[in-house]
């Protein structure tokens, strides 16, 4: 070998080693993701809220200011650093320079402010405005500085921006202004993938963003997103090799167990915070009597329900936080599971106990409903199942047109947002129609206290009140699942239930 050639080889070797951990990941390839639902679009003004399928897509095309590391703590993404005022009401973010949207326009503070103003503007009637109700305004004093002004203090504000949802994802202002109504199906972000084509109801093809700010990423050349609504055929498509990773949940327990036994497949699971919950309308008799409510909660045998519906995969919940949360309670005030006592309470109430409960018109909803119906029948309460389609849930909830309704507290790095929204007097989603000044005080206090231990105390006290008054009850903690081919690597924890394949690679 000539001296020049030897140098070349050495240089190449050095470069290879210098690339470091990137050597383990393979570049290239196409990953096909099986989603549960079709995505109506990405414009917050049009769709209001992103569901999990939209979140998964958004995590690839769009980005947020802050990301989550392996431990669920905030790490820089589009923002490099942040700081807050002493009262935690003003937060300043320093943005990453030299980032461009897919259409070439620059990502800067003005873009962040523009996105926020658009969502907040009352003229736009955005359903997404509810989730930023606590944000009063956003300033952009220079290109790389964004200042958020909050109404109520938020000690953990940065992690609230980590979810790839309708509020935190940053869209290109130029693109929205140029495309108008068409923007919904043609999102432009700063993310590692660009939308190449989108056939409604069939598939979305995303291609690698060659000018992505994070050099060396993404590893994949292409990601294909396919909505496969039927759970059995979704799993079949994975086994047949048509998809590489699919969304799943514990109700598909048979398939999950099958996948665990299959060496060519892997099951990704994440025990998140939050839980599957149910809200009781405390203004409607007979549910206005605390004895009836307590009886309903005590009649539940969560282990048996889990066995019946999910082959035991579902983990019982006794408080709204769950094992996946940093809030750990020694005493969360959970009522004991005691059908005999429940029956006694119903008898003590004296009058017949009869009410309706809302369920989605799906096999899962029906199974859920019939199990609860049976358990309550055993203690003398008569529940009638009311089946409605998923779209009817939110309006019925907001208008309080229900006796008992199912809801969910999703996995989120901080319990404040959802707990405040769900239980503070006056909130649109305080579904139980219940007002308790002590509860309000605790919620307000938890918001402003920076000390995690003190906040934990507050949240545990909150849980005790809710459990004792039985205004909401929790069935199972959130366990998020994805089933994938063994060759799929680099998928982080399923925070918030989102399957984030932006850094994934194929072995």
């Amino acid at each position, binding site marked *: 070998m000539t001296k020049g050639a030897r140098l070349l080889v050495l240089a190449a070797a050095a470069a290879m080693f210098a690339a470091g951990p990137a050597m383990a990941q393979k570049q290239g390839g196409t990953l096909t993701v099986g989603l549960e639902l079709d995505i109506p679009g990405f414009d917050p003004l049009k769709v209001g809220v992103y569901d999990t399928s939209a979140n998964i897509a958004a995590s690839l095309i769009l980005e947020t200011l802050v990301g989550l590391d392996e431990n669920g703590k905030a790490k820089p993404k589009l923002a490099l650093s942040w700081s807050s005022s002493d009262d935690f009401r003003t937060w300043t973010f320093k943005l990453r320079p030299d980032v461009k949207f897919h259409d070439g326009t620059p990502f800067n503070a003005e873009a962040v402010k523009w996105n926020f103003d658009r969502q907040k503007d009352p003229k736009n009637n955005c359903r997404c405005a509810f989730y930023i109700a606590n944000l009063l305004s956003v300033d952009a004093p220079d290109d790389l500085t964004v200042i958020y002004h909050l109404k109520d203090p938020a000690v953990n504000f940065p992690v609230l921006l980590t979810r790839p949802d309708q509020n935190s994802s940053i869209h290109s202002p130029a693109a929205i202004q140029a495309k108008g109504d068409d923007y919904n199906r043609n999102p432009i972000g700063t993310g590692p993938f660009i939308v190449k084509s989108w056939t409604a109801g069939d598939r979305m093809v995303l291609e690698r963003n060659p000018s992505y700010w994070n050099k060396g990423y993404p590893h994949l050349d292409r990601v294909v997103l396919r909505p496969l609504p039927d759970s059995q055929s979704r799993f079949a498509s994975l086994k047949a090799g048509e998809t590489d990773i699919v969304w799943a949940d514990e109700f598909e327990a*048979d398939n999950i167990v099958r996948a665990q036994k299959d060496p060519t497949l892997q099951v990704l699971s994440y025990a998140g915070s939050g839980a599957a919950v149910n809200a009781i309308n405390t203004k409607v008799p007979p549910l206005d009597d605390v004895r009836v409510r307590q009886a309903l909660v005590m009649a539940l045998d969560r282990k*048996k329900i889990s066995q019946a519906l999910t082959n035991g995969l579902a983990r019982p919940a006794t408080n709204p936080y769950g094992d996946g949360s940093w809030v750990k309670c020694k005493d969360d005030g959970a009522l004991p599971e005691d059908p005999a006592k429940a029956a006694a309470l119903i008898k003590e109430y004296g009058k017949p106990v009869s009410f309706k409960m809302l369920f989605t018109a799906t*096999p899962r909803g029906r199974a859920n409903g*019939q*199990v609860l119906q*049976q358990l309550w029948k055993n203690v003398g309460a008569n529940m009638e199942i009311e*089946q409605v389609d998923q779209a009817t849930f939110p309006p019925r909830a907001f208008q309080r047109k229900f006796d008992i309704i199912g809801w969910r507290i999703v996995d989120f790095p901080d319990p404040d947002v959802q707990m405040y929204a769900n239980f503070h007097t006056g909130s649109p989603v305080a579904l139980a129609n219940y007002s308790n000044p002590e509860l309000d005080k605790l919620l307000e206090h938890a918001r402003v206290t920076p000390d995690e231990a003190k906040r934990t105390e507050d949240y545990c006290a909150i849980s005790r009140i809710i459990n004792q008054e039985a205004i909401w009850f929790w069935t199972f903690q959130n366990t998020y699942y994805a089933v994938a081919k063994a060759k799929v690597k680099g998928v982080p924890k399923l925070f918030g239930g989102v399957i984030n394949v932006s850094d994934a690679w194929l072995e």
Partner: protein
Amino acid sequence: MAVLELEGDTAAVSPVRQSGRRLGGLFVAALLWIVLIGLAAILANVLPIVSPTDMDFLGKRAPPSAAHLLGTDQLGRDMLSRLIYGARISLTVGLLSPVIGLVIGGALGMLAGYFGGRFEALTVGGVDVLLAFPPLVFALAVTAYLGQSALNITLVIGVLSIPAFTRVARAVTLSLAQREFVVAAQTLGATHMRILLRELLPNVALPLMAFFLLAVAVTIVVEGALSFLGLGVPPPAPSWGSMIGEGRESLDIAPWLAFLPAGFMFVTVLAFNVIGDTLRALTDPRPGAL
């Protein structure tokens, strides 16, 4: 070639009456099954069977045992009991709905085919409108306004089956209306009513009855599909169709959850068909078929 030997035809058709004893056996079996399932459905409340809704949470998808003669379903409920209670819903909806279609649709179709003109145009138009109308919207509207119940589902499916019966009746009537026997009756001065009832109806009845028996089978399954979409009989009331839907999730672990109700449905529908075949053979001199 054997298949095209029409000579063998006339001989092949008359076994309906010739091998009376052989068909008699099948007929008796069919009759027995219908009576059995019918009685079981009617007397379900007093029969010594377990409740169809009680769940044995830890014993789901259990194979047959002393406690559960046909095993349990995916929520631990007794299969035999659910099949019997399911017969109630499935038979009621399965029989009544097509009757609605048969009576209303058949009448409309015959009248349209016979009288023609404006009436026919209106009827055909009306039926077209009903057919082109998205059935799901109709089902949703009815269940939203009148609630979910076996009666309402019967109404929905019944009304949705009218167009098919109308079209079949009309098509057959059209071809018969110019036949010699009709023309002859008209020349003889018979009234429309007489012609319709005496001449046309017996001839239209045959294809309509064949269609009716098919409709029974289809209706039981359609009720299941509607239950699948949350529009059928409200849970926890079982029906064969909804049991098939629920059993679908467990096809490789416990295939009997879906195949038992399908089997019951198959035997019942076949039994109706055999009975219909035999009755027609006994009452109609002209060999036809159902």
